[in-house]
């Protein structure tokens, strides 16, 4: 079990995260927040790259920084901007990281082909990485995170650069991996985590806003999400009163999904809130919030 207690992080005088309390046990955790919310900052503390300004991070009751390499031995990490050497092929690259992870050459020699097969790159094992597409690079990144068979897998925006097909593959892979480990996955894209995360963590205003299952998070908006149909000329006016979540055209009219405190019209249809609704609601433009 990985526990974050009372963690604050400042860069200089600028406070980025405040009073973060989190607990992780096996399963997929979706760290969902817009850009700049502090996801990467939190993840870098979980990977010992950043020291918390205040508070502690514990693994099985021990401070991860005093555990040192014993802790780092347990984690697999895919940084948001993860690095590689362009002139290395995946085999050389993974051998290098295996060395850093304290894996013997022989063990790595066995492991590397299996991992590359897992991410469907077995044919590119001797191909220079400079020739790789963004998706291929990202898959090498996932393979490297799995090299040491980590107990804690931490992925910072891992789906960036993956095409839709690869995303599906990737999600399936993660659910599979999460059976016997902690998987923490940060993203600002709701659909990345919607189908696989056991728990969603949202960060807002430097603090943890939610840490719950999708179901429970969605309940916060229960009875407040509606859909209705109207003529285009009314849309402008409507948007000024209600938070529009999504809009699409249908038969020359506009279908709008929106939030309201209570149903006040007969042609409003109440619908079940989704995670996307909550995300849009919570992180709606500041200006809109003031209007309400």
């Amino acid at each position, binding site marked *: 079990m990985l526990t974050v207690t009372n963690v604050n992080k400042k860069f200089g005088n600028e406070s980025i995260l405040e009073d973060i309390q989190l607990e992780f046990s096996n399963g997929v955790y979706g760290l969902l927040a817009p850009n700049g919310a502090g996801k990467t900052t939190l993840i*870098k503390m979980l*990977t*010992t*790259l*950043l*020291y918390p300004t205040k508070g502690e991070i514990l693994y099985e009751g021990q401070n991860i920084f005093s555990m*040192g*390499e014993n802790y*780092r*031995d347990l*984690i697999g*990490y895919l*940084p948001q*901007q*993860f*690095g*590689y*050497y*362009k*002139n290395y092929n995946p085999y050389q690259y993974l*051998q*290098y*990281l295996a*060395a*850093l*992870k*304290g894996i*013997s*050459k022989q063990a790595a020699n066995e492991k590397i082909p299996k991992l590359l097969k897992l991410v469907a790159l077995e044919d590119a094992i001797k191909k220079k990485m400079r020739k790789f597409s963004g998706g291929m690079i990202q898959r090498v990144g996932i393979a*490297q995170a799995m090299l*040491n068979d980590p107990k804690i897998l931490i992925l910072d925006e891992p789906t960036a650069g993956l095409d839709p097909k690869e995303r599906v593959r990737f999600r399936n892979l993660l659910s599979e991996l999460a059976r016997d480990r902690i998987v923490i996955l940060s993203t600002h894209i709701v659909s990345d985590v919607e189908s696989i995360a056991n728990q969603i963590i949202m960060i807002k205003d430097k603090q943890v806003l939610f840490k719950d299952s999708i179901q429970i998070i969605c309940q916060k908006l229960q009875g407040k999400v509606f859909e209705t149909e109207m003529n285009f000329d009314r849309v402008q006016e409507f948007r000024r009163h209600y938070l529009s979540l999504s809009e699409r055209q249908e038969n020359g009219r506009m279908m709008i999904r929106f939030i309201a405190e209570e149903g006040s019209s007969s042609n409003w249809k109440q619908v079940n809130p989704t995670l996307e609704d909550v995300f849009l609601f919570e992180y709606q433009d500041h200006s809109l919030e003031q209007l309400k």
Partner: protein
Amino acid sequence: MRIIIEEMKKIFHPVMLLICLLINLLMYYIFIDFDISVFPNGRPATDMYNIGIEMVDKYGHELDENELKDFTKVLQQEIKKADKYIQADKEFSNLGITSYREFIDMRKENQENPEIDLLSSKIMFDKEIDLFWEIPQRENVIEKMEFVNERYGYSDLVQLPTSKQDQRIQEIIQSGKVNAIFPSYPVEYNFQTISQSIAITILVSVIFMISPIFIRDYKNNMFGLQYSSKIGRGLVLKKVTAGMLATFIITTFLIIVYYGLYSTNDIGMFLESEINSFMGTVYWYDFSFLQLIIMTILLTYVITLSLSLLAIFVSSICKNYISIIGIQLPLFAVLYWLIKKRVLPVEAFHLTSSQWEIGMIYSIMIIIPISVIGWIVRNRQTKDILE
């Protein structure tokens, strides 16, 4: 060890090696080649070199009194030969010259006389008569031996010797070491210039190969992965070790190559000669020529390892290659200046080099790089990895 090997693989990347090879070819042809292919360099260097070989052949590595007498006899025979040559030559008799002595005296007295000048340059430069080149060199050797008590060591000094310098000079004379046969001109001078060039070439190679050590990782966004892996921030020390090992390998390899090429200069017969010779200069220590070479090589290691540590440090604090060059260039310039001033490595032990100053310079070269690297290694332990 596995990490160190992996790090060294990055340093010895084939493309880097290839560029390093080109740099070395260039530097070799610009700086080193001349002192190898043109040795001894013209006359009278060649004559002095040949006389040196003859002396070692005949007398061994020291010249005792009897041997000096023999050497003087050889000179006299040569002068006789020169006399005969002069007597047989019409041009000389036309000018009324009948012996070598007369010729030399006339040349000295009538410096403006175009006829003697013309004849002299004809003999020396057109016909290149060995006798006329060798005799002055032989006379020179004998003169140096004759006046060894009065002059030895003084010709190297610009100012009057300090009491310590004087003591050292007297010590060499008294112990008899001064009798060593070692034609420092041209052998020692050639060794000094070539050692400078070799040291500079190795320095450039090492800076080139080592400088990317950290910035390569930074530029490739590797820090996050590296410092979150099991080894974590301990990687800094591993990389420093890899850098030092690589420097050692590069330096050793280039030393073998360049001093190997130097050995084709045929100086083998002088290796056992003491360098504090009446024919040459004064050193603070009783080294043989071979020992001088070994000490020079050792100092070359100190210089390259020192600058390499600095290069590692600079690489770890810089965010781009331009600033690396910007910091390395002045550092290199200082070392280049010190080498060219002959402080490092070749004349470190020379009587003209204050051993106190040399000790200071080398201490600084050892202490500063180690301190800044120590600082970086510790600093990385406690610092956030922001990149």
